């Protein structure tokens, strides 16, 4: 072999060896920043609280709610069926498995949308698919689903239907007696009504006692 071929051979081996020995780059699989920016601006990641509530009520198995608040806040209250992955552990490998479940729409929520958005960006940068954010977070959840406001008189059928749905949803999610809101203007009558209810109850008990006594008498 001539000197020229030996030189070329050495260069090839050296270049390839350097390539092997170079430190591996991180985040090579990251989402392209310009595309990520487009997705952030498009707002397609947001799911409304009504949409989420409807899917939970219907028992949709393809939705997984992820509470990104601290575990203390999660223990205090969380939407039924939600799992808890605090924001700083979203990229923890052992917890990642839940976020990579196939055929699941992963919906992040926090008190507002701030922490949930951060979790969403972390996941999207890692090219995870089907990631969403609950629009407005738990604050909107409480405003719209748990304590729905009745529609104004000028609003159309859609608003009334939505209110009816939210009223039902609030019962489903454990809010007691939305009927109280209807009788709210008649607060003055509320106390007499309560008294009236207690009176028949007493009467019934008395009747039962009478009946029992009669039976006993017959038995004797």
């Amino acid at each position, binding site marked *: 072999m001539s000197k020229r*071929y030996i030189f070329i051979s050495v260069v*090839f*081996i050296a270049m*390839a*060896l350097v*390539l*092997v020995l*170079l430190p591996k*780059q991180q985040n090579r699989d990251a989402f392209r920043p310009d595309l990520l920016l487009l997705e952030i601006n498009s707002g397609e990641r947001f799911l409304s609280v009504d949409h989420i509530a409807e899917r939970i009520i219907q028992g949709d198995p393809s939705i997984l709610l992820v509470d990104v608040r601290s575990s203390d806040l999660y223990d205090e209250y969380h939407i039924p069926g939600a799992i808890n992955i605090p924001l700083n552990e979203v990229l923890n490998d052992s917890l990642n498995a839940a976020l990579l479940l196939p055929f699941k729409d992963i919906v992040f929520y926090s008190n507002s949308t701030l922490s949930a958005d951060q979790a969403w960006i972390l996941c999207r940068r890692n090219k995870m698919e089907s990631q969403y954010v609950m629009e407005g977070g738990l604050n909107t959840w409480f405003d719209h689903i748990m304590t729905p406001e009745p529609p104004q008189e000028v609003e159309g059928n859609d608003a009334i239907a939505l209110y009816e749905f939210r009223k039902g949803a609030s019962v489903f999610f454990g809010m007691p007696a939305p009927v109280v809101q209807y009788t709210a203007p008649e607060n003055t009558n509320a106390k007499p009504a309560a008294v009236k209810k207690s009176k028949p109850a007493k009467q019934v008990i008395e009747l039962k006692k009478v009946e029992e006594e009669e039976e006993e008498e017959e038995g004797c």
Partner: protein
Amino acid sequence: MGPLIPNEIISPEWNHVFAVLIGIAFGIVMESSGFSSSRKIMGSFYGYDFTMIRVFMTAAITSLIGVLYMDYFGWIDRTELFVVPTYLGATITGGALMGLGFLAAGFCPGTSFLAAAIGKVDGMVFIGGAFLGILFFGEIFPLISDFYYANYLGHITVEESLGIAPDWFALIFAVIAVVVFYVLSIIRKSVEKVKY
């Protein structure tokens, strides 16, 4: 940054302009290396001239290492490069047929155009034969389409099919190439030198 056209740094219309320019450069280099002579290719089969193998292995390693370095520096996104899909049976059969054609005619498609361009009649006849072969293939394609599409492996690269990292593949390939160069030089010495 790269690839330039998928990332819209230059418009797709430039594709053909670059193709022509690179083709001209390729032809100049091949002609200056003497590839317009059919004996160059025959030499790799009969063992008196291995320029062809050396040139193509050098080109493969240069581009392999070059792409990996450019990918490392962020100049090009390797995942966006087009990888030709692999139909295993058809590729092996086609490769064997092409080798047979090399052996029979003394040209590969590139060098035949080179020979025709400098006025060699055998090169022109080869091009005519190549077009006849294309026509024949097109006519019988419905009969062999099942075989053609069998054993589809997708847009797969060699290192993906072997399951090793691309940088390690580059190193292994470079070592293999150097060994091949050395073995070829020994064979060359043992074979009587042909003058042409």
